[in-house]
């Protein structure tokens, strides 16, 4: 038998010497689905109550895979007043923002966000609701947090309209730090159907984050449906390689040289070998894609960042240093994934002696550069 602990340790006071950090992946959620109702029209409230949430996937009763912990969350992140982990701003402050000295936190709502719904009109309405909900319930109450514009990404024009709405409203615009997509889309993200999203992000002056997961309707690996959750976790690296390759080869970065892309929660050590292979084949197959005028690695070097969590943990930390140096200390954005179970603790995540400037870049300065919050 397991017993829920009623008493929780008090949040430790933040030591003055504790490094200020940016956390580029925080997951807020609602306490009840009905909490989203005020942000939906009556028409969509009724739809939600009648039909529920339907995704582009073959498993209608929930995710295809189990999670590492209940609700995919840290067991100690259930708020004392009840509700789902991530639904209580005060508890998030006490357990995470204050003790870990988070100066900038990027909100990435996932559950649910409206992204990837089977019903496109409902996806449009729900994404809009979640954007308004983030501002009303989170970023208006906590200045350290910035929201993400979630969009009905399978409809490029509707997505662009939602980005324009958020960025064009002087009351809303300052609350948003990026446009958010998920990694599993109906087609690879370089496809032109998604280009209106990139154009709108540029108009808004915002980077585009691509968070692992989502429901694209295809098997989650290139080889079909795997059996185990660990395969899904490892597979995010594969999925991000596919979408990044698509964005490079289709010419997204060539077409939009000011576009900034952040890959969230899919690892990073795979990036160097992917770029070696892309550069090699580009030199041989350039005629197939004449619109690429530079080495694939050069586009990525200039326009792509990656969040760190879940951190690579090689047995020999020297190999971690080498992987980071291949990518560049200026390309990685620290993230915890709070309150999810594979949370990375900022005090333990980087087992290396590094120069102060590199440590600051990794934990704070790169994020401020990408998200324009200097």
């Amino acid at each position: 038998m397991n017993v829920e602990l009623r008493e929780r340790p008090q949040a430790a006071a933040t030591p003055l010497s504790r490094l200020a950090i940016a956390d580029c992946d925080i997951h807020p959620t609602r306490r009840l689905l009905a909490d989203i109702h005020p942000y939906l029209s009556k028409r969509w409230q009724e739809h939600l109550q009648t039909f529920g949430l339907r995704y582009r996937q073959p498993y209608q009763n929930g995710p295809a895979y189990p999670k590492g912990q209940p609700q995919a969350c840290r067991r100690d992140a259930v708020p004392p007043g009840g509700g789902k982990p991530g639904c209580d701003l005060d508890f998030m402050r006490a357990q995470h923002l204050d003790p870990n000295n988070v100066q900038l936190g990027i909100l990435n709502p996932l559950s649910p966000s409206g992204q990837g719904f089977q019903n496109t009109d409902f996806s449009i309405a729900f994404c809009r609701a979640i954007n308004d909900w983030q501002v009303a319930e989170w970023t208006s109450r906590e200045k350290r947090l910035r929201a993400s514009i979630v969009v009905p990404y399978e409809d490029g024009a509707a997505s662009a309209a939602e980005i324009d709405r958020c960025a064009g409203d002087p009351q809303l615009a300052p609350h948003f730090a990026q446009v958010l997509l998920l990694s599993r889309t109906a087609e690879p993200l370089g496809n032109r159907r998604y280009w209106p999203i990139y154009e709108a992000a540029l108009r808004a002056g915002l980077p585009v984050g691509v968070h692992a997961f989502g429901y694209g309707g295809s098997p989650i690996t290139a080889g079909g449906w795997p059996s185990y959750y660990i395969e899904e976790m490892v597979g995010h690296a594969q999925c991000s390689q596919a979408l990044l390759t698509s964005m490079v080869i289709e010419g997204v970065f060539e077409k939009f040289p000011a576009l900034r892309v952040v890959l969230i929660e899919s690892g990073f050590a795979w990036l160097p070998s992917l770029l070696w292979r892309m550069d090699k084949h580009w030199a041989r197959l350039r005629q197939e894609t004449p619109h690429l005028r530079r080495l694939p690695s050069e586009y990525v070097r200039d326009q792509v960042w990656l969040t760190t969590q879940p951190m690579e943990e090689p047995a020999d930390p020297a190999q971690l240093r080498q992987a980071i140096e291949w990518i560049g200390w200026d390309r990685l954005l620290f993230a915890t994934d709070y309150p999810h179970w594979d949370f990375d603790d900022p005090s333990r995540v980087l087992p290396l002696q590094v120069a102060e400037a590199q440590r600051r870049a990794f934990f704070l300065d790169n994020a401020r550069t990408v998200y324009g919050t200097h």
Partner: protein
Amino acid sequence: MARHVIARVADLPPGSRTLVTVKGRPIAVFNVGGEFFGLFNRCPHQGGSLCEGKLVGLLQAREPGRYTYTRRGEILRCPWHGWEFDIRTGKSWCDPDRVRTRSYRVDVEGGQGLVEGPYVAETVPVTVDEEYLVIEA
């Protein structure tokens, strides 16, 4: 090393756990079917609070499809990343030599003997007719 009275036995029935502080160190104390175990309350991987972990059994398979499930309630899964620890030794199952948390012996002592000392019992008032949990640290 000193012996510390941390709780009355009656306050920690089978299936329960508590978090105590001994000489400034947080220690998670568990009652598993009447046996008591103490673990340093910080996961050696990234620092999760082990006192909030789930106690499970030891699931093993000699080959795919042939499973054994033994030692019910003696494996503690960290509440964060799910690292598994043997509650008797503090060693992790996947990397027992490098990833291990300190385990503390927890003894049951009668109040009569404790009143005579020498014990440190700053927070638990001791009476002669009760039984107490004692940790050496």
